């Protein structure tokens, strides 16, 4: 296939500590691949091994079929957009962008033409003769991108390129970055700790945790089918339910007793049999909330009775905390209709929480500490 950039068992140790541990994945030509993970999980280390600033202790990195390990950074067919911009403060914007071409000993006229094209692409023509400290943060970021892209790298590496900018600017630059990608068609390897950023821009995401890649997939795949509690909790919010399988209900569903909550149906995302202990991730927006008792439930739906314990109005949606027995469920409700048209559930109301059995996802692995990454704990006692 078109595996363009390949990491093969890449490992980097500092003393006994594994910054990157046996990482293997492939990036396809022309796609935006995001490396997503919390701070300290090894993203920058991985990127710097590809750029050539750090050599891996084990493993290989291939770009377009060619092993690049051992090649110095100035000879690798990749360019980096650094987290801190790393613009040359003593050079003008024009000379910053032209730096790589100058190093490649290209002709003066050619450099000028290429730089002009880049200035135009990132919309900085009128700032060409300024120094970096005379332009704004967003403009610096665009210079950094232009300075890397002008060399036509096989892969463009971006290390948290928007982290230093404020939210509105971040959203705008994200769109611009996407447009630039469409225009140049270069493979992007995009490192970020911000899941919304990764979801918005990438074709595929590699979620990293503690030096390892936990899961790789399209944004929707990662969000809807997280392999373990880390991925589920890191990408958005969720409810973790743990229980024991009681019996199989045909091919598709099983009946599960959830601790301190009752019996529910779950979809067999993987092979389970009676007696198995399971962990389920249930996204708050998949749950619906109603004040009247539901009609007879069909096989594919669950309904749990509870009491509204907290209501948080968030504008586009409202978050409810519903107590059922000894635990709480987070429920999110979109306001597709004007709020005042109906009477929404409120504090102390008796409610029913409902969801389709196949909206819960069976996790392959669960660690209790990941539950603490969620915005509010599920249990209060």
């Amino acid at each position: 296939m078109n595996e363009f950039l390949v990491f093969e068992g890449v490992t980097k140790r500092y003393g006994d500590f594994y910054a990157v541990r046996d990482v293997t994945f492939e990036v396809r030509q022309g796609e935006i691949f995001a490396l997503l993970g919390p701070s300290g999980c090894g993203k920058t280390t991985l990127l710097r091994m590809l750029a050539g600033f750090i050599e891996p202790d084990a493993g290989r990195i291939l770009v377009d079929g060619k092993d690049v390990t051992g090649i110095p950074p100035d000879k690798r067919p990749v360019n980096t957009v650094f987290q801190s911009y790393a613009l040359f403060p003593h050079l003008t914007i024009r000379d910053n962008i032209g730096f790589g071409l100058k190093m490649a000993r290209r002709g003066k006229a050619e450099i000028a033409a290429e730089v002009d094209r880049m200035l135009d692409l990132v919309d900085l023509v009128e700032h060409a003769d300024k120094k970096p400290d005379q332009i704004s943060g967003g403009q610096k970021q665009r210079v950094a991108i232009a300075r890397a892209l002008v060399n036509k790298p096989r892969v463009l590496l971006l290390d948290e390129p928007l982290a230093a900018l404020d939210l509105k600017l971040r959203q705008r630059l994200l769109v611009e970055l996407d447009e630039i990608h469409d225009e140049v068609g270069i493979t992007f390897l995009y490192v970020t700790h911000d899941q919304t950023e990764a979801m918005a821009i990438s074709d595929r995401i590699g979620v990293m945790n503690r030096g390892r890649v936990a899961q790789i997939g399209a944004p929707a795949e990662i969000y809807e089918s997280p392999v373990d509690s880390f991925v589920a909790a890191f990408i958005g919010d969720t409810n973790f339910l743990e229980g024991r399988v009681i019996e199989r209900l045909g091919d598709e569903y099983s009946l599960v007793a959830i601790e301190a909550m009752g019996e529910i149906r779950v979809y067999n995302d993987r092979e389970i049999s009676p007696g198995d202990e399971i962990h389920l991730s249930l996204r708050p927006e998949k749950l619906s909330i109603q004040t009247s008792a539901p009609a007879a439930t069909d096989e594919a739906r669950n309904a749990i009775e509870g009491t509204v314990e907290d209501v948080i109005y968030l504008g586009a949606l409202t978050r409810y905390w519903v107590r059922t027995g000894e635990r709480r469920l987070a429920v999110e409700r979109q306001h597709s209709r004007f709020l005042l048209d109906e009477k929404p559930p409120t504090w102390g109301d008796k409610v029913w929480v409902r969801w389709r059995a196949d909206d819960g996802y069976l996790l392959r692995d669960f660690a209790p500490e990941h539950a603490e990454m969620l915005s509010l704990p599920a249990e209060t006692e």
Partner: protein
Amino acid sequence: MKSRLRIPGVLTALVLVFLYFPILVLVLNSFNASKYGSSWEGWTLRWYRLLFSGESRDIWESIQRSLHIAIGASLVSMVLGTTAAWVLHRYRTRLQKVHFGLVYLPIVAPDILMGISLGILLITLGVDRSLETITVAHITFCISYVALAVLGRLQDFDESVVDAARDLGATWWQAVWRVVIPLLAPGIVAGGLLAFTLSIDDFVITFFVKGVGLDTLPLKIYSMARHSRQMPVINALSTLMLTFTFVVVWYVQRHARPALRG
């Protein structure tokens, strides 16, 4: 209330008089027809003529020597001091703490100590005294000043620009030449100028390491000052040096600073 405010003013005036009155007297005496400068006997340019006559050839030779030494010492210490600062900044091991101590020592150590020890070293090694031995002696303390000036500059040096240069295809040397040195230049130049001025008026250390007949300007002036009939020529020379210094400082203030600021 008012009288209290007057004290700082009076103090300032006293300090200024104390600092500048002798210089003023020196400048006036360089134009004084009196040989001894104890009384005013009218204007003359005689001492300046004497300074530029063949009789003062050894003064000019000592100036040449001093320039030779100062230029050599500041250039070499700009290179060595900058590399020392780079290493001190980059690697923070225990050995580097020792290194920093060694770099700092010549600044706090008394000149007389350095002079004597260098003198003894030269004798022990049996090295012939020459301009080069003096230059090497000056380099030993000039390095420290350059290193400190460059270290100051390194405080706000973002090292990721070196990575950026390498990433954009610069070899290690190209990165140093096109990025590191231009960014450190203000510190290197400031350290170099400091080294130059320290070298050109060093007396004590030079005294212990120089050979016979190899007087630098300060040593030459000292030996002349012992014969009072040569005093007026020294005054003339000092006045010219003062003027030169003022012109240089004025020029640097006027042109170099904005250029460094970019």
